[in-house]
């Protein structure tokens, strides 16, 4: 009887608490994504329709599990651009609905337009999808926080490993599109920085054509050895092909038996479905359960962005945008993202410091920064453009 009574009282208590609890603090996070998905050479790497936003959705769930204990509630407002839509208008429309935190997966030019349209509105963009260094350098903006790594961080992460491995003589093959040239530029910078030598550069012209054909493999098998023959002595072929035109055709087809890295073979990434260290298995499992597919680098960058917002809101226990942003940009902010160490923001350009994974499509081969690459502030600052070299002037 007494036990029953106690049970009832506890039950009532719970009821009372729920009934009289204040309405939760609502935090809406925007998600603005580019139109279309670019085709990849490999079928298995073709991004899913919800690439990126799926990660943000998982982070919203994670934020809400925590929010349950803090009386905070997070929602995601997704907006996908169509071809020809103006990113600036879309960003303003989200800000008009009082959304202060907007995760973006936009090309550099659209991102800048959106950032400039939001100037003075108190809203901030979290760049999850653009790796262009210029967004953190000459074109940096005070209202953009960069969660995606830069090309130079990716290239440095790869170069440190290749130098550690003593594969210092690179044959570089560059695609004929602008982004391929930008990646090649980052790789040249890394080679000079860490003591590798590019023994020769070749350009692979994109002459158009379909990425998948019924009789394709026979031709590729003849083309690639010929394309890579008569090279000077080299240790590894480094391919710069963000446009997905040729790099994935190179492994096992080079004239000389050499490994491939860069845009195929050993690839630098912020995340990979094979990442299982530092508690990442739980994360991978949660993602798989929610989305019935594996987690990509873009998913992880969006997850991290939404978690950064959730983490800041929880720490300051407020949804006031200025309070949250001041904390995010302040010295006490850090985020745990299954990379074996805390991630923090570079104060001079608002870029998230992060280790770079080197993956081969099946396994994580290594994680940079490599042992022995030292830095006076953070070893993560051995990756990418460092403070003394920055061209960014916020404000």
């Amino acid at each position, binding site marked *: 009887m007494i036990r029953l009574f106690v049970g009832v009282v*506890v039950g009532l208590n*719970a009821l009372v608490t729920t009934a009289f609890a204040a309405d939760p603090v609502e935090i809406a996070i925007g998600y603005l994504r580019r139109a279309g998905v670019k085709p990849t050479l490999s079928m298995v790497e073709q991004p899913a329709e919800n690439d990126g936003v799926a990660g943000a959705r998982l982070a919203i769930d*994670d934020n809400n*599990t*925590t929010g349950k*204990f*803090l009386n905070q509630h997070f929602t995601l407002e997704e907006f996908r651009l169509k071809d020809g839509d103006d990113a600036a208008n879309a960003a303003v429309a989200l800000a008009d609905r009082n959304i202060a935190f907007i995760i973006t997966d936009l090309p550099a030019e659209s991102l800048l337009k959106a950032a400039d349209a939001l100037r003075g509105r108190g809203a901030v963009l979290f760049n999850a999808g653009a790796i262009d260094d210029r967004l953190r350098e000459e074109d940096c903006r005070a209202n953009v926080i960069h969660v995606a790594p830069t090309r130079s961080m990716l290239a440095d992460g790869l170069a440190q490993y290749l130098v550690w491995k003593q594969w210092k003589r690179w044959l570089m093959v560059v695609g004929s599109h602008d982004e391929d040239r930008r990646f090649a530029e980052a790789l040249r910078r890394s080679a000079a920085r860490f003591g590798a030598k590019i023994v020769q550069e070749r350009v692979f012209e994109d002459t158009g054509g379909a990425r998948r054909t019924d009789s394709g493999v026979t031709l590729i098998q003849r083309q690639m050895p010929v394309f890579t023959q008569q090279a000077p002595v080299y240790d590894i072929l480094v391919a710069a092909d963000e446009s997905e035109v040729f790099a994935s055709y190179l492994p096992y087809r080079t004239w000389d038996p050499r490994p491939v890295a860069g845009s195929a073979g050993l690839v630098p990434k912020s995340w990979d479905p094979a990442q299982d260290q530092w*508690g990442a*298995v*739980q994360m991978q*499992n*949660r993602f798989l359960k929610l989305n019935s597919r594996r987690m990509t680098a873009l998913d992880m960058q969006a997850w991290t962005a939404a*978690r950064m917002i959730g*983490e800041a809101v*929880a*720490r300051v226990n407020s949804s006031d945008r200025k309070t949250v942003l001041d904390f995010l940009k302040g010295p006490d902010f*850090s*985020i*745990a993202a299954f990379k*074996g*160490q*805390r991630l923090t923001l570079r104060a001079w350009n608002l870029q998230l410091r992060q280790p770079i994974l080197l993956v081969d499509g099946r396994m994580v081969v290594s994680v940079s920064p490599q042992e022995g690459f030292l830095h006076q502030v*953070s*070893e*993560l600052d051995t990756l990418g453009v460092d403070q003394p070299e920055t061209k960014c002037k916020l404000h």
Partner: protein
Amino acid sequence: MWRLCLVSGIAVWLAGTLPAGAFIAYVSNEKSNTVSVIDTDKWAVIKTIKVGQRPRGIEFTKDGKFVLVAVGDDDTIQMIDTATQQVADTLPSGPDPELFIQDKAGKILYVANENDNTVTVIDIERRARVGDVQVGVEPEGMAISPDGRFLINTSETTNMAHFIDTAARQIVANVLVDARPRFAEFKRDGSELWVSSEIGGTVAIIDPVKHTVTTKITFNIPGMRKEAIQPVGISIVADGKTAFVALGPANRVAVVDAASHQVTKYLLVGQRVWHMAFTPDEKFLLVTNGVSNDVSVIDVAALKVIKTIQVGELPWGITIAKQ
């Protein structure tokens, strides 16, 4: 006379093989799927027991009859019979168990299940799951207040210590700590709860009555980058004066004055130090070194590392009891 001689002879012989201070340590080896058994008189591995996949959390039952080991990738907790030193039974832990704790009487086991944000409550004797408590994202560290009233669970992505009323099995308070809280330990008098934050790099000292963080211990090792200092395992001696904190990839154990919360010394151990356990007489502290595949033995009075014992691959958890 003869008889007396014989009896004392037997006594001497017995003392030779089973000295009064003989303890036995069980170490879980995360990678090799084994448990190494260490004799603390010989400071040597005397047996290696095959267990399930990815053994991590490991603890003697209160009656000493079993060693419980969470085998995360097999979604269960195995019971090693300490008499036969073989796996004898399993407990229904829920998915991916990592750390767990028993109540004072040794009847109830609370298990952190990383994959589904719950703490599972198990009746050890009946080998039955009797309840669940919903907690934050990725529950990990587990502790129980000395009076048995509160169970503490830390959740790694929610970054909280949850206070759970053990009678009602409900959360009564949540305390925000630094990133990725992995381990929780009460002072034996119940006056303080210590929670280590691996990524945050701190240990939070929590007032268990007011549910507030009263202070945070930070660690500064000259020449060591901040990111490498990742506190995990904590042990506090019974008198509450000295505490030890494993600092992960910093390869050191911090010695902390538990009254002033100041670090007094750093002891160099093996690579990636995870967890630790005292011998029951508290003369020695054994710590597992995940990357160098060994266990360091610390002389608690002298504050010196006196021995290193090779175990299996990627040692993680450790538990020690009388032989």
